[in-house]
């Protein structure tokens, strides 16, 4: 292979590698951001629903309490109604607690996205550093050598980045998770 072809081959490999690496990571950024958005939307929807339900039940309970305070002696039905309302409020509070855990999940997704973005920036910094070492009169052999070194450096960075980006949040909804006792 001629020197020109060797140089061309290295450049092509580097450009293709950078493009593939960047593309893969940006697709993952997109996926994580969309998942975060879905979880946030669902959390707001469910929390709004819980809030309204609690408000409605507390209102109804207060109405019953006011009637009792005005009238005096509670009936068995009054007592049963108040007990049922307490149960309803607990259920709505539990639903809200489940929904509020969106913060933990979205925080992990955002953290993963930030790590990825930082990794990509470091990747571009490495390209810049190696590119900066090339001068207008740098010989082809040296360019080939440098391209080899930058490809190696980027490959190592790529592996390091992948090692810190394990996906730990796969939940697409805020339904409560499985429980398993060993």
């Amino acid at each position: 292979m001629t020197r020109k072809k060797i140089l061309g081959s290295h450049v092509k490999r580097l450009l293709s590698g950078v493009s593939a690496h960047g593309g893969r990571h940006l697709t993952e950024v997109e996926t994580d951001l969309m998942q975060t958005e879905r979880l946030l939307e669902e959390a707001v929807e469910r929390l709004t629903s819980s809030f309204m339900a609690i408000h409605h039940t507390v209102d109804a309970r207060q109405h019953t309490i006011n009637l009792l305070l005005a009238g005096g002696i509670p009936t068995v039905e009054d007592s049963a109604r108040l007990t049922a309302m307490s149960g309803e409020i607990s259920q709505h509070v539990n639903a809200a607690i489940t929904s509020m855990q969106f913060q933990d999940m979205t925080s992990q997704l955002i953290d993963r996205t930030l790590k990825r973005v930082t990794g990509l920036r470091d990747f571009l910094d490495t390209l810049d550093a190696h590119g900066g070492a090339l001068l207008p009169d740098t010989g082809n052999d040296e360019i080939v050598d440098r391209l080899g070194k930058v490809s190696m450096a980027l490959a190592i960075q790529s592996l390091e980045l992948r090692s810190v980006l394990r996906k730990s949040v796969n939940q697409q909804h805020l339904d409560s998770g499985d429980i398993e006792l060993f």
Partner: protein
Amino acid sequence: MAKTILAVDDSSSLRQMVAFSLKAAGYNVIEAVDGQDGLDKARLQAVDLVLTDQNMPRMDGLSLIKLLRELPDYAKTPILMLTTESSDDMKQKGRAAGANGWLVKPFDPQRLIEVVKKVIG
């Protein structure tokens, strides 16, 4: 006397939710912000149950469990994972480390209390 649960999670909102749910059911709750904090607090006071997240700074849940199991006071203490992780691979690692159960987030407070009651009464 009320049983005591050590809740380990780096998310303060999650710890609040867990503590709120368990205290409402009559348990005492000690909170820890990560695995190292959990280990330090477990050494200071023996608890009846440890509920730990997996992905935390300084020390993760699996590492915490392995170190707790080396402590005489914690050889048989029930330890449950409460985590976003749901893969069989992670559950197997948890079981091998010494966990007694695996709860996937988000948790439902009523179900959490049922599991805790089943494990420690």
